[in-house]
């Protein structure tokens, strides 16, 4: 166990992600009747739900970076460094959440269906852009981490903001979609897509085919609406 935690100092973050998914899935079981996409009614009360979802969906993408931060910090600073990194990373997602939920609120319920279809098409198009591709390739960019003091803290925060922003650029249409649709099954499906793209070699090859899948779902949703 000691050896495992030494090799994977980010283990507790992974556990926290698992707990977040359990909470989300428990919600699915409790409200099992929500099989069809449900649309959000309000925004500000949903910030807590948004952060839970953002944690469950986007932290797995950055676990290698959390491990990098831990292993490149002195032992006594490891936990602090990981927390600072994650705080900055999630801070970017929180800011994005505020923008996303505000857009959804401003659009109003009648437009939500249009928003979902539109976002699926936009997500499909986004998969094909150079910006998306660059954001994926930039995943391995790191920030030098000084050994101690304020400089070390700032570097962890800076690394978190950078990775968070890079991740937003890569996945924003899918996460904006999740601000409209709160169905847990959608959440699981999109989380798998995002994880594969960001962290697996096979997933990287599926970035373009995924555009076709998203476009097909968008078109089907438009025809059924």
């Amino acid at each position, binding site marked *: 166990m000691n*050896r495992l935690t*030494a*090799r994977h100092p980010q283990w507790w973050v992974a556990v926290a992600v698992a707990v977040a998914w359990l909470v989300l899935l428990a919600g699915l079981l409790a409200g099992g009747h929500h099989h069809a996409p449900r649309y959000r009614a309000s925004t500000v009360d949903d910030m807590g739900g948004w952060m839970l979802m953002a944690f469950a969906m986007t932290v797995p*993408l950055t676990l*290698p*970076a959390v*491990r*990098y931060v831990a*292993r*490149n*910090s*002195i*032992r*006594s*600073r490891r936990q602090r460094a990981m927390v600072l990194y994650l705080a900055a990373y999630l801070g970017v997602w929180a800011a994005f959440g505020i923008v996303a939920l505000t857009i959804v609120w401003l659009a109003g319920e009648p437009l939500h269906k249009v928003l979902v279809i539109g976002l699926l098409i936009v997500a499909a198009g986004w998969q094909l852009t*150079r910006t998306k*591709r*660059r954001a*994926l*390739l*930039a*995943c*391995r*960019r*790191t*920030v*030098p*981490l*000084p*050994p*101690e*003091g304020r*400089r*070390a803290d700032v570097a962890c925060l800076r690394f978190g903001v950078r990775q968070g922003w890079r991740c937003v650029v890569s996945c924003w249409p899918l996460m904006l979609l999740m601000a409209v649709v709160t169905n847990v099954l959608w959440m699981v499906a999109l989380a798998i897509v995002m994880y594969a793209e*960001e*962290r*697996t*070699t096979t*997933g*990287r090859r599926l970035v373009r085919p995924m555009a076709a899948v998203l476009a097909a779902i968008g078109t089907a949703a438009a025809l059924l609406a």
Partner: protein
Amino acid sequence: MLRSQLFANDALLQSIADDNDRISRTRHSRGDSVRKVQTALLTWDPGALPRFGADAVYGNETAAAVRRFKIEELSVAPAQAIDDVGPRTVIRLDEIQAAAEAPPPPPPPTPTLFVRRDVWTLQSAAPWDPITIAYARAVRTMQARPMSDPTSWAFQAAIHASFVTPANPAWNGCQHASWFFLPWHRMYLFFFEKIVRAAVLADGGPSDFALPYWNYDQATPRNTLPQPFREPTLPDGTPNPLMLPAGGRSAGIQAGGQLRTADTDSSNAMASTIFTGPGGTTFGGGVSAPAHFDGESGMLELQPHNIIHVVVGGPRPAGATNCNVGLMTDPRCAALDPIFWLHHANIDRLWNRWLDSGGGRANPADSAWLTQQFGFFDETGTAVRLAGSDILDSATQLNYVYDDRPTPVAPPPRVTPVAPPPELGAATDQVIDVTRRVTARLVVPDSTRSLIERLSSRAVGAFLAIENIEAERNPGVVFDILLNERRVGTFSLFGIELMNDPDHVHDGAPGLRHTFDAAEVIASLVSMNRWDPDALDVTVEPVPPVPPPGEEPVAIEDLDLPPVRIGRIALFVAEAGPDLVA
């Protein structure tokens, strides 16, 4: 004596050959001998007897064919050509028939195993050897082919990387900074060698042609550019394609300057006993995965591979997007330099020697490595693919060996601390800009001070990592790293252009990281009483290009190097735990 099986032992034909008889429309005009003459005429010209063929009758058609034979084959003047069969006709028909009956000449024997030889051993007696001449001529042949031809020089080089746009999908495939470095380059060389060999054979060159290798890690003159790459002309006086126009290589190297032992030495890589793994001190490199922060070059890739690339190529002009200067320094030009292939043959050889050394040294057994396929082109220009599992043994799977097989002496396996993972003990806390020699002090936090102090005992592993190395372009010089004035290692920025390119899929993040085993240096500092945890100074020193023989190196200040930024220099400590493995 008539030699062909058809004419031999025919008394009449022998008699005619001896000028004692003849065949004509009136004499011996039917029979087996006539059929034999007709058969031989058909061998000479399959259309000679269009109506009756070999019917054993000496009629008008045969007589006309014999007359034509005399005119065309025996150069008899038409006025003197009589349509009967005399001695010259029989003898010449016999020769033609015998040649046709002879079995086709056997193809030149193909050796069962090709041997790649040390280029300096080939040229020990004279600057040129049949193998190097054949290579030079094949390079010229390939250079004459259009770039659209996969067997052309330009196409083959572009498979590695290229400036040329629009890029063919088969180009820009080189694998660096990961565990695919060695297998990809082995496949690349294997098919390139097949293309060169086909050109050599077509040119009548040695049938046992195999790529020579340049083992620069030897005494002078072997640590200088091989002579065939410095000669302006081939022995026949034609221009030598192995010598690049001025500027193509570092001027000092081109003039025969000596490589430093510090740059050619492969002993650190050979001492490592693990092919892949985390930590940056493996032989073959880190696992390639999209979100891999530890994805690092193997030690053999870093040195001598990367360093020789840069030292041989030398500095390139700022903003250069062509391959006129410093070819070996930029992966997009490197394979255009004919020495590239001899350099890589040497790296490939070292991989074999490493495996021979035992001590647990082995290729990865991971299926992600074994099943990873890469695409190339064979000597017919046909697309081909190989997987890692196809190239594990060069002798049995790819039909070649190196002339230094078997290995001389196995270096002792080093004790590699694999668990627990190395811990950060000290690091610089500000970025370092390197345009000339620069020294930075490592900050030792209070909480790791005892860890650093324990480094004075040999049971503790120490690794010095140069991290987040960034530059807009490769300065074309290498950098020595010193800890308290003792050399720990040398690094280069080979490949940084590809890693900087936001659109290029490449292992190795923008922000290179090189890790050096510092245990030996720390031990020597301790023994000299120069080990002081309060004064750990790391020096980064650009090494000027190799000067031509007899000249002084240029001052680094005069080179106007592009700035190189080092994000952090860190000292990691691996304490011998209970699960330390040998």
